[in-house]
């Protein structure tokens, strides 16, 4: 994480400074607006240097966020944002890397990368705007959709158990695991800021309603509540809490102490020409 130089000679950056002038294409009322607000507030809280911050995403409504920020951005292909971000962060450890996307992007097509990003523990923050649906493709079930949710593609529901992202993240080795709710942008900003500050791979699952295809998610504001317990650094304890989690406990669940994966880069010990010696007869 690279923060701005001391604010003595420069006015501190505001959340607005981290927004681009490009107008989001989201439906009015989409939870992702609040996530964008929370993200820029978190950046301002940390006074991140925009040029040393990069937002990386895949494809989906939620994955549109990079272009809406004033930082560097990378809008890649569906499901592969974590891989692109991993390449960026490992080769450029000076950058603050934030990955954003949806539940379809991250848990379905990108599921394998999610597992391995948790396990690899590169120092970056992964924000999933979970709306339990594929928004961009107009309403199909995702891995977090309830089994009986009716849709054109799965009439009568999928009949499949929903996937619990935080259980997976914890089991796969993420160093920081939290849940936030888009309906509370300030609380979400705090959690995102903590996630960025935490070394290693930080995972923030944000309940972000899709008002178009899941209008009933507007009611999430009445069920989302602060988690009754403080964060733990004990993985087993965090896992036990998740056993009784109903999906609406908001807050940081777990922050571990596993050192991030960052191989050294940029320090040459030999010249390129010298390498040919091993081939010479």
């Amino acid at each position, binding site marked *: 994480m690279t923060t701005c130089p001391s604010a003595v000679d420069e006015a501190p950056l505001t959340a607005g400074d981290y927004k681009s002038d*490009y107008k989001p294409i989201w439906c009015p009322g989409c939870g992702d607006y609040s996530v964008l607000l929370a993200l820029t507030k978190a950046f301002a809280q940390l006074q991140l*240097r*925009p*040029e*040393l911050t*990069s*937002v*990386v995403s895949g494809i989906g409504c939620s994955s549109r966020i*990079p*272009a809406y920020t*004033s*930082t*560097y*951005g*990378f*809008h*890649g*292909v569906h*499901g*592969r944002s*974590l*891989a*692109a*971000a*991993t*390449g*960026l962060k*490992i*080769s*450029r450890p*000076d*950058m603050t890397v934030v990955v954003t996307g949806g539940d379809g992007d991250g848990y379905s097509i990108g599921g*394998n*990368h999610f*597992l*391995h990003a948790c396990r690899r523990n590169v120092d970056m923050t992964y924000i999933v705007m979970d709306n339990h649906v594929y928004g961009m493709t107009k309403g199909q079930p995702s891995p977090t959709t309830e089994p009986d949710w009716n849709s054109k593609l799965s009439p009568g529901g999928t009949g499949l158990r929903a996937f619990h992202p935080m259980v997976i993240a914890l089991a796969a080795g993420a160093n920081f695991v939290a849940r936030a709710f888009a309906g509370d942008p300030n609380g979400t900003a705090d959690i995102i800021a903590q996630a960025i500050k935490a070394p290693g791979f930080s995972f923030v699952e944000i309940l972000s309603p899709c008002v178009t295809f899941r209008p009933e998610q507007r009611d999430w504001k009445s069920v989302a509540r602060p988690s009754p317990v403080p964060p733990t650094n004990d993985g087993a304890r965090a896992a036990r809490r998740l056993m009784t989690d109903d999906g609406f406990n908001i807050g940081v669940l777990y922050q571990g102490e596993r050192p991030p994966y960052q*191989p*050294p*880069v*940029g*320090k*040459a*010990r*030999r*010249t*390129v020409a010298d*390498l*040919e010696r091993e*081939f*010479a*007869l």
Partner: protein
Amino acid sequence: MAMEQSLGAPQSVSLAIAGSGGAGVMTTGNLLLTAAARAGLYGLFVRTSGPQIRGGEAAALLRLSSVPVQNLGDRFDALIAIDWQNIHRFADEIPLDADSLIIGDMSQGPLPEAFVRTGARPQDLNLKELAKAIPGAWPNMVALGLCAGMLGLPVEATRSAVETSLKKASDRLPASLAAVEAGYAAAAKLPGAKVIGGEAGKKRWLITGNEAAGYGAVRGGVRFVAAYPITPATEVLEWLAPHLVEVGGVLVQAEDELASINMAIGASYGGTPSLTATAGPGLSLMIEALGLSVASETPIVVVDVMRGGPSTGIPAKSEQSDISIAVNGLHGDAPRIVVVPNSIADCLTTTQWAVHLAEKLQSPALVLSDQFLGQSLAVIDRPEDATYVAERLIAPAGGENYRRYKITDDGVSPMAIPGTPGLAYTADGLEHNEKGTPSSQATDHRVQLAKRERKLSLHDYGDYWADLEGEGELAVITLGSTTGPVREAIARAARDGVKVRLLAVRLLAPVRPEHFAKALDGAKRILVVEQNHSRQFYRYLRSEYDFPVPLSSFARPGPLPIRPDEVYRQLIEWSRA
């Protein structure tokens, strides 16, 4: 024995050393090549084995010569068998004839029928027994001495090769050297050993194409590699892993090829020249992301070491069957660079060139190597230093109103590297306007498509786009590892007074119509030689170029290599027509 000149190739001998797994024939092959190299010879060493992952029958195929060799030749002068187990499996790969010798323990049982049919002469020699007489010695070391003796290699060259290889196991050295001597003694009793003269003193390397590709990448400036193992590309990655670290770079093992290519793209977006290496199945998985590299204009190099396909195909055997996917395999209008090294040495410079082109043109560049080039070990002249390096057009800090995908005359737009204040932009695989803002406007799409095409087609690729050799009304167009046997066929034809032109195409995409026209000016018959079933190269050429005369095709799939004699005979037949 008759290790005379095989069909016109000056001073060359081909040997096969076979045995069951654990017999150590690969060690023999390696040491024999090293010894020959120290004696001033050139050579090529190809490993082949049965279907078992480890422990099955194996054969070391070698060709040694006074001049650099790029293929195994048409036939083998001798097959040396440590044992006969399943050796018949190699009958196709080790063509013998009445002038060939089969050396082995004839008391082990009858010669496999497939070899008897060739008319090759059996020579009874029990390598195992010779080894048994020396405590701690192995038959493969006797075989080494035998081969070296038959070739007339100085004992010191062979000894020093063995000494170097046993540096860390010096307790085994005395027995090994004694076994080598026993081999030399046995060779002395064989009739008519062949001596080929070497030329010491030249700067030469011992290298595989996969190592050469790795080194070429580093020379070009690659400092980030993401890897997922796959035969026969793994050695590119394994060579790069430690060496990248030494020059300040890094290799990351990815969870799959979808990840490896996207990691490389992410690193390249961050400003670091990046690469991944794979084979057909991995390339198939990478196709979508190659399109991202095209659309977002993020440079990336992919080395595809081709093997038999489709699907899992024949993993450890060579085939030039990824030509079509390389030139056509992306959705949308997606210009890309495809380059093809045509020798083991050329894997170095062509990969280095690919890095240069990808970076310069902010585009994906595919290097189509293949299993033969990648995994064969060769003695080569030290390649000349090439000046190709990564030179990306970088946007300077401080500009106003930065447009990442600005329309320029040559199509290349200055790229902002994250970290540069004031130029923040979002790289995008969605079609976009000049700023990078997603756009589905007809005009934006059209100008961006044209820009991306223009930057590749307008670039001056120089003379390196192909190797154009000789002249004549007969011409052969080929590419990649098939160039080796074609070159040799053309050299033989020349000795018969038949002049043939060679066009070995290195730049497969984008197309170079004027260059082709010039190169083939005056040709009356053109043969296209390639190693795949469906004539992928021939069909590509026909779809992209106008030729003065109809093309003829000579195409055969792997796993067997195309041999010089097959091409030579076609050329001679044409010359008489």
